[in-house]
């Protein structure tokens, strides 16, 4: 499978039973909505229990709160997005 954003090959890894596709080029992460809900549920459990087992391969996903933005390749290509908000949002009170 190839990344729909940059065309580089996708790597699949499994995190606590949830399949995650991560691009080897732009590092974008692609999940289905059902998988996103599973991950969100798992992460909120992690916040109350022991730290998660490391993923078998690929890059770990930084823990985020249950109310965090869905990190879904189609909606949040986070590189371009991050540059757009940088100047104003990250420099003011």
């Amino acid at each position, binding site marked *: 499978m190839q990344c729909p954003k940059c065309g580089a090959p996708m790597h699949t890894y499994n995190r606590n039973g949830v399949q995650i596709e991560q691009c080897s080029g732009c590092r974008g992460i692609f999940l289905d909505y059902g998988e996103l809900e599973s991950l969100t549920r798992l992460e909120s459990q992690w916040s109350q229990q022991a730290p998660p087992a490391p993923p078998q391969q690929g890059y770990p996903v930084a823990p*985020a*709160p249950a109310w*965090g*933005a869905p*990190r879904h390749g189609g909606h949040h290509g986070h590189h371009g997005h991050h540059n757009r*908000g940088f100047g104003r949002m990250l420099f003011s009170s």
Partner: protein
Amino acid sequence: MSTPTVRALGRFASAEAHRNGGPCLCEGLADTPAHVLADRPDATVVRHGPVVAKAHAADTDPGELSVRAGVAAHPALAHVLLAPLTRSAVTADGRPVTFWPYGLPVDPRAPRDAPWEATATLLAALHAVPTDVLPGPLPPMRGPLKAARAVERMRGAGEHPDARAVEAAWAALPAWARAESPAPGRSLCHGDLHLGQLVRDPGGDGSWRLIDIDDMGEGDPAWDLARPAAWFACGLLAPDDWTRFLGAYRAAGGAAVPAEGDPWPALDVPARALTVQTAALAIAKSVAEHRELDADERDVIDACARIAHLPDELTPAPTK
């Protein structure tokens, strides 16, 4: 464009820059708009050559400001906070003025160069300073107060369809995070950390220092990590940058989060408060400027809506 406060600060800064006499070689910098670094009710900042003069808010408590300036000047913080120049002044309308050396700020146009590690390391050092060696009494850190004022400003701006989500997220916060009861934590905190709060030390090797002492005080050190945490959670800060920041903070022994494992139990309440604060200011500004919210502001509002709809079991108990 130039207000009486700006003109007065220009004269103050010029006098301070040239207190040893000699001609001004700063090429008439004092009153040019390029050297007005800020002009808001809570902070008017004017640069003349190597000197920055800052008029603080009119309601600033002079005793608290003096303690905070004393902390910034303390040797224990020489490598963490920019130290003020020794003199002070007052504007005609009663705003206290402090003087600072000018240092180069972070470049907002160069996200790849943002000093995340330096920011994290400075915060870890700030949080580690034993407060009993510092001037006192140390006032409370004012982060929760700033969040409360942002919500007040949104309420005063007028109707907005997204205000309900922000109000709901605000109502779900514990009282201390809304400045309605004393906050936990006894660490020295910056209180308003963002990337505009770092400059290169002009007197030393050019390493980064924290500036802006107005909200500094005793409190929960997680509040100082809450803005980057909120940006990450809202999708505005790339996971890589967040990981660099948090990793450097932990590597420096920072007290706000456990050394390993999930940091979110410690960060969640302050990060939600900063998300509400950012959303409330976005709404207030968009109403005042008669414009739509932009995509970044929309992301922060959307996060408030998700907070407001969190199932109860995912909302940490407001015990802290």
